[in-house]
C-alpha cells in the first residue's frame, strides 16, 4: 500500500463526553472542508470498488469521493442524490462497519482503517445544505403518470415517494403521527440525528411535488379500500414500531418503560425540554436498560442526558454479539454507561407505592448457536442478583405496527406478523398494494428500508405503466 496514505481516519471533532452527557446537541460535529478532502485522499479509487456492493443503495462511492476531493461538491452531491434521498441521514446512522466501510479495500491493510465513507457522505450533504442554494425542484409539467398513495413516512415511504415523484407520479404520503419521518423523528435521538436535518431532507422530498398528510392513520382515518379506489397503487411502509415486553413480573410497575415510549416522549414530544413542551418524562436517577441494540444505546444515553447518575445496560449475550453500531457503543462507554454482559432481568421489584426499586437479574452463559447464528444465552441456575433502579427501560425489539394490518385482513402476513411481499418488487397478496421496509423485514436499518423503497418505486412504475398499456390497447 502506498506509504503516503494515512493509516487511520482523519480524526473528527466531537463534543467532549463530560459536556455532552448533559445536553442533547449532536455528538459528532463533522469534518471541515480541509479534513474532508484529506480523508477523501485516502480512498484508493478501486476499480472493483467493493464498497459500492456493500452499500444497500449502491452509491457510487469512489465517484462521490473523487468529486469531493477535487473540490467539486456540487458534482459530489449530485452523485449521492442519484442513489439516495437522505444522504445526511445515512451518513450519520448507517452501520457502516458492516456495510460500505466493512468491505473497503483500504481497511483490509494491516493497521489500516477503512475510508470514513459515512462521514464524507454526511459532509457533502451538510455542506450542500448550508451553502444555501436550494436544490432545484424537479417538478414535472403535464399529466402525471398516475397516482400513488404511500402509507407511513419512515425512510421506506419517503424514499418510494421521492423516487415516484421524480418519475412523474402524483404522490401523497399518509402519516399517523403529527410529524413525518418515522423512526428518524420519534426514535433516533437528537444527539445522533438532529431533527432539523430530518426536516430538511423531508422538505427536499416535498420540493419534488410529494404531498404529506399527517394525523392520518390509514385503516382508521381513511380505509385501505378508499385509497385503492382513489390511487393506482398503494405502498405500505408502516414499520415495526410495536414494542415487545419480556413479560416478566412487574412489567406494569411505574417506572418501567418500553424504549419506544421513552424515546417517543423525548424525541417526538420534546420531553427533555419539559415544561417548555407539555409532555413530561421522569427524571430517573438510576436506570437499567435491557437490550444490546441501537435502541438500547439510544435509551441509555437519553436517560443519562436527562440527568441520571447511573445508567446500566444489561445484555444477555456479550459485547461480541451486540447488534448496536460500534460508534454508538464507543460513545456510550465514553459517556460512562455501564455494561453488564450475560445478564438478563427476571423480575421488576416494586416499592410500596408501586414504583420499580430494583431489577432482579440472572447471569447467563452462552450455549450452542441458535437460528441467528449467535450462541444462545442460557440462564445460570441460582445466579440471581438485584440491581437497584428507580427506572427500567426495555429495548428488546419491536413487532409490526398493527393499526393498518388489523383493518386489512386480506393482506397475507408471515408467522411473525410481517407482510408477505416479493423481495424484488414488494408486491403483496393484494393487487396494486406493495410493501417494504421494517413492516416486511422486521426491525432492520434505515438504509435497508430505503433500498426497499427504491426497488418498490421501480416496481410500482412498471405495474402502473403496464396497466395503462393494457387499458390503452383494449
Amino acid at each position: 500500500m502506498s506509504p503516503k496514505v494515512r493509516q487511520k481516519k482523519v480524526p473528527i471533532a466531537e463534543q467532549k463526553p463530560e459536556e455532552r452527557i448533559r445536553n442533547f446537541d449532536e455528538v459528532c460535529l463533522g469534518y471541515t472542508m480541509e479534513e474532508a478532502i484529506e480523508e477523501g485522499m485516502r480512498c484508493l479509487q478501486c476499480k472493483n470498488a467493493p464498497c459500492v456492493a456493500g452499500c444497500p443503495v449502491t452509491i457510487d462511492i469512489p465517484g462521490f469521493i473523487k468529486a469531493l476531493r477535487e473540490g467539486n461538491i456540487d458534482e459530489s452531491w449530485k452523485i449521492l442524490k442519484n442513489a439516495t434521498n437522505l444522504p445526511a441521514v445515512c451518513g450519520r446512522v448507517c452501520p457502516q462497519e458492516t456495510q460500505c466501510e466493512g468491505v473497503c479495500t483500504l481497511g483490509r491493510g494491516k493497521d489500516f482503517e477503512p475510508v470514513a465513507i459515512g462521514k464524507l457522505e454526511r459532509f457533502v450533504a451538510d455542506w450542500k445544505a448550508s451553502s444555501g442554494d436550494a436544490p432545484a425542484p424537479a417538478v414535472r409539467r403535464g399529466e402525471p403518470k398516475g397516482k400513488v398513495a404511500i402509507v407511513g413516512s419512515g425512510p421506506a415511504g419517503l424514499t418510494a415517494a421521492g423516487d415516484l415523484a421524480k418519475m412523474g407520479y402524483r404522490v401523497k404520503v399518509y402519516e399517523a403521527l403529527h410529524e413525518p419521518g418515522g423512526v428518524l423523528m420519534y426514535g433516533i435521538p437528537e444527539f445522533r440525528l438532529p431533527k432539523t436535518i430530518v426536516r430538511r431532507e423531508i422538505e427536499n422530498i416535498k420540493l419534488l411535488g410529494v404531498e404529506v398528510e399527517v394525523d392520518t392513520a390509514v385503516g382508521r382515518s381513511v380505509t385501505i379500500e378508499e385509497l385503492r379506489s382513489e390511487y393506482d397503487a398503494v405502498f405500505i411502509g408502516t414499520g415495526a414500531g410495536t414494542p415487545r415486553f419480556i413479560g416478566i413480573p412487574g412489567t406494569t410497575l411505574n417506572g418501567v418503560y418500553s424504549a419506544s415510549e421513552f424515546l417517543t416522549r423525548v424525541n417526538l414530544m420534546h420531553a427533555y425540554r419539559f415544561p417548555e413542551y407539555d409532555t413530561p418524562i421522569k427524571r430517573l436517577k438510576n436506570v437499567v436498560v435491557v437490550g444490546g441494540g441501537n435502541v438500547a444505546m439510544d435509551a441509555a444515553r437519553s436517560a443519562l442526558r436527562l440527568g441520571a447518575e447511573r445508567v446500566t445496560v444489561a445484555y444477555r449475550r456479550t459485547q461480541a454479539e451486540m447488534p448496536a453500531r460500534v460508534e454508538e457503543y464507543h460513545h456510550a462507554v465514553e459517556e460512562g454507561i455501564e455494561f453488564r454482559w450475560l445478564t438478563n432481568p427476571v423480575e421488576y421489584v416494586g416499592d410500596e407505592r408501586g414504583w420499580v426499586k430494583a431489577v432482579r437479574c440472572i447471569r447467563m452463559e452462552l450455549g450452542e448457536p441458535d437460528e441467528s447464528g449467535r450462541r444462545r444465552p442460557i440462564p445460570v441456575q441460582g445466579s440471581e442478583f438485584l440491581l437497584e433502579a428507580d427506572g427500567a427501560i426495555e429495548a428488546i425489539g419491536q413487532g409490526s405496527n398493527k393499526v393498518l394490518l388489523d383493518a386489512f385482513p386480506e393482506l397475507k402476513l408471515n408467522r411473525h406478523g410481517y407482510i408477505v411481499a416479493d423481495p424484488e418488487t414488494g408486491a403483496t397478496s393484494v393487487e396494486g398494494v406493495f410493501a417494504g421496509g421494517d413492516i416486511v423485514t422486521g426491525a432492520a436499518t434505515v438504509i435497508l428500508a430505503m433500498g426497499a423503497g427504491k426497488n418498490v418505486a421501480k416496481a410500482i412504475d412498471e405495474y402502473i405503466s403496464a396497466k395503462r398499456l393494457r387499458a390503452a390497447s383494449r
Partner: protein
Amino acid sequence: MHTILEKKLIAPNEYDMWVEAPKVASHAKPGQFVVVRPTSKGERIPLTIADYDLKRGSIRFIFQAVGKTTHQMARFEVGDSLSDVLGPLGRPSEIKKWGTVMLVGGGVGIAALFPILRELKRVGNYTITVLGGRSSELVIMKDECRRYSDELIITTDDGSEGIKGVVTEGMKVASEGRKINQAWAIGPTIMMKFASLAAKEMGIPIWVSLNPIMVDGTGMCGGCRVEVGGEVRFACVDGPEFDGWAVNWDVLMRRLQQYKDEEKLSLEQYMAEVESAL
C-alpha cells in the same frame, strides 16, 4: 387545521366542543376516541368522540379541565384551531341486539357513553341508563340521554337529584327483578371499578372504557398498558373497552399517578402565565 365550531360550558369546569375533523367524522363509531394535540408544543391527549356530524365534517368532545392541556383547551374559542386531531382510534363498542342493556355513566364519562347508548337503542335494545354525579349540576347530558333511554335513573352523592348515593345504588334499582344481558360503565376509574364489582356480583357482564395515560394512541409506545385477566394489553389498540370483571384496577389507578408531580408543575406554571397575561 381543526377549527372549533361550537363551544359551551355545560357544568362547572366541563366543556362541550364541536371541532372540524372530516376524516374522523366520516369513520367514527361509538366507543372510539381521538388523540388531540392542541398546540405545537402541546401534549397528545386522548378524548372520546361524543358525537359526529357527517354533513358538517365535525366531531364533538366533552372534556373536563383537570390539568394544563385541558385547561388550555378550555380557553380556546370558536374560530380557534387545534393543531392536531388524530382518529378515530380504538376498537368500536360491540353494538348488536343484546336484549336489555344497562348503561352506567359518571362525570365526563357520560359523554363517552352517549353515542353507545344511542346506537344500542337504534338497533333495538331495551336501554336502562344510570347517570351519577356528586350533585345535580354535574350530571351532564341528561336530556340527550333520556331521548334514547327506555328508563333513566339519576343518582347524586348529595341527593340534589334522583337517588341519593353512588351509581351502584342506581344499578341495584335498575336490575331489580329482571335479567340484564349486558352492561357498560364509563366514568372515573374508581366508579368503573365499583360498577364492575357490583355487576360481577349481579352476574352481569360489563364493558368498561379504560383511560390510561397515552402518547401515540396507535399501539406504538406501550405506555397505555393495562392488565386484564392477568395479561398485559395496550388500551389504545386492544381497547379502550375491556371486560370489567377482569380488569386489574389497582394497576390502572397506580399508573395514572405516574406524572403527578410533573402535571402539578405544568398546571401551576400555566396558571401563573395566564394570570400575568390578564
